[in-house]
């Protein structure tokens, strides 16, 4: 899945933005470890096969606590998106507009993930556009970003 052109060390945002960290209780550690090794993981219930994201301690469908992790292809489609003009974080003061996408992942039960849509912030975007994951590596954590795939 993760060819080298799906990896970037160039940050979408200037320095100073908050970065993610695993929860101290370990619930989402596998997700962030997966991202670190450029593998997109979501929870899958072992007994009933239900996918869920974000992580939970039990399956919301059958309430089993026997939950594993499934690998996603990293291909998805835009479920919703927004172009942000007014920054609320001091690190973004001179950033200008940026794009946030909510991506639906069909091969893992249509769970959704948020990321930036890389490229020109003024690009034409439509709900339903196909996207693929891009790994944005930071010193000790990796962000899950998205890039539009060319229309076939």
């Amino acid at each position, binding site marked *: 899945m993760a060819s080298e052109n799906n990896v970037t060390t160039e940050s979408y945002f200037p320095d100073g933005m*908050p*970065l993610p960290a695993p*929860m101290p209780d370990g619930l989402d550690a596998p997700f962030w470890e997966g991202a670190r090794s450029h593998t997109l993981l979501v929870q899958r219930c072992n007994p009933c096969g239900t996918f869920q994201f*974000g992580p939970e301690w039990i399956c919301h469908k059958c309430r089993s606590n026997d939950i594993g992790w499934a690998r996603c292809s990293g291909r998805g489609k835009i479920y919703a998106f927004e172009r942000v003009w007014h920054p*609320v974080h001091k690190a973004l003061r001179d950033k200008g507009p940026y794009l946030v996408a909510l991506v639906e992942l069909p091969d893992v039960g249509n769970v*959704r993930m948020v990321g930036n849509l890389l490229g020109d912030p003024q690009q034409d975007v439509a709900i339903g556009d196909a996207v693929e994951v891009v790994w944005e590596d930071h010193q000790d954590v990796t962000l899950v970003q998205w890039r539009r795939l060319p229309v076939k």
Partner: protein
Amino acid sequence: MDYSIKDKVAIVGIGETRYYKAGQAPISEFQLALEAIQKAVADAGLHIEDIDGFASYSDDRNDPTRLAGALGIPQIQFSNMHWGGGGGGMAGAVGNAAAAVVAGYAKHVVAFRALAQGQFGRFGQGHAGARVRGAAAYTAPYGLMSPAQMFAMRTQRFMHEHKISQEALCGISLASYKHAQQNLRAVMYGRPLTREAYYNARWIVEPFRLFDCCQENDGAAAVILTRADRARDLRHTPVYLMAAAQGTGYRQWVPAHNDPDYATSNFKTLAPRLYEMAGISPTDIDVAQVYENFTGGVLMSLVEHGLCDADEAEAFCTNGNLEWPNGKLPLNTSGGNLAEAYMHGLELVLEGVRQLRGDSTCQVKDARVCLVAAGPMVSPVSNLLLRN
């Protein structure tokens, strides 16, 4: 439904401070709370000593124990905070106060909200910390952190699903601003909004422009509830609660925007319960007060309360239906959060009471039933049906 609060409780007093632009109140938030409560008690024709219960929401900082101490209230018999951030608990606090009255826990309960954000942290600001954990870890690093940013995403999806343009949001904003021009309490009194100015205003986050977003204000508001049989002896026409509901739908607000039903104001499970308790239908509503955090939430709330069809929502919001005096369903007749003041929506309950007393500055002729909806798109949300 014989086991409910229906018609058993009335709002008998309303009070508010002057409403200020954010950071401009000359007195503390606590003083603002005291002033609004005292005014509501006076409006009811009650004495401060009659108050024996408090209800609020959204982590109000003004603790009933401190308020009661300062006011010299003989005893507290009920004190309650509705869970959830944002304004989702505005109607819920009133509903909880009503429940306390029906249960006999307390006789005269005040539901209140005081806000002076300049004296504390402001809403709408990003995370300051270098690391974020839990649900915020999936959103904040991508610049999705403020309420506007959280709700624009849902609104975008809703507008896509129902082919609704910005015109609908503009119509909602114009109605609130128009109504505020009649209302001397309104912070936006004397500052009318035109369609052109709406479109010339800067984007905050698409599809929201500046005038799609609520104000931030300093002030306080309060209402007093008591049993219907006591209410009739007090100063004003009692405004009865026909119904109150609070809650949330299936897996709403699970992390990273994974709510199974995403493009919703979150009233789909509440609205049917509300109408069932009241024994009325949407066509019985004469006037509506719908919390505007952002216009997109109002749009969805109107649809989910059965006041217009999703696929006809744009026409409904742009044909003057929302505007007093000629519209079919005058909306936010005081100016609401957008243009009267952002008292976290509690000012909408006060306006509902005014409409049913016949005291509004945009008085709907022969108004009998008012809907109040709180907190669209958050979880939990809440709503009320009021009658005279």
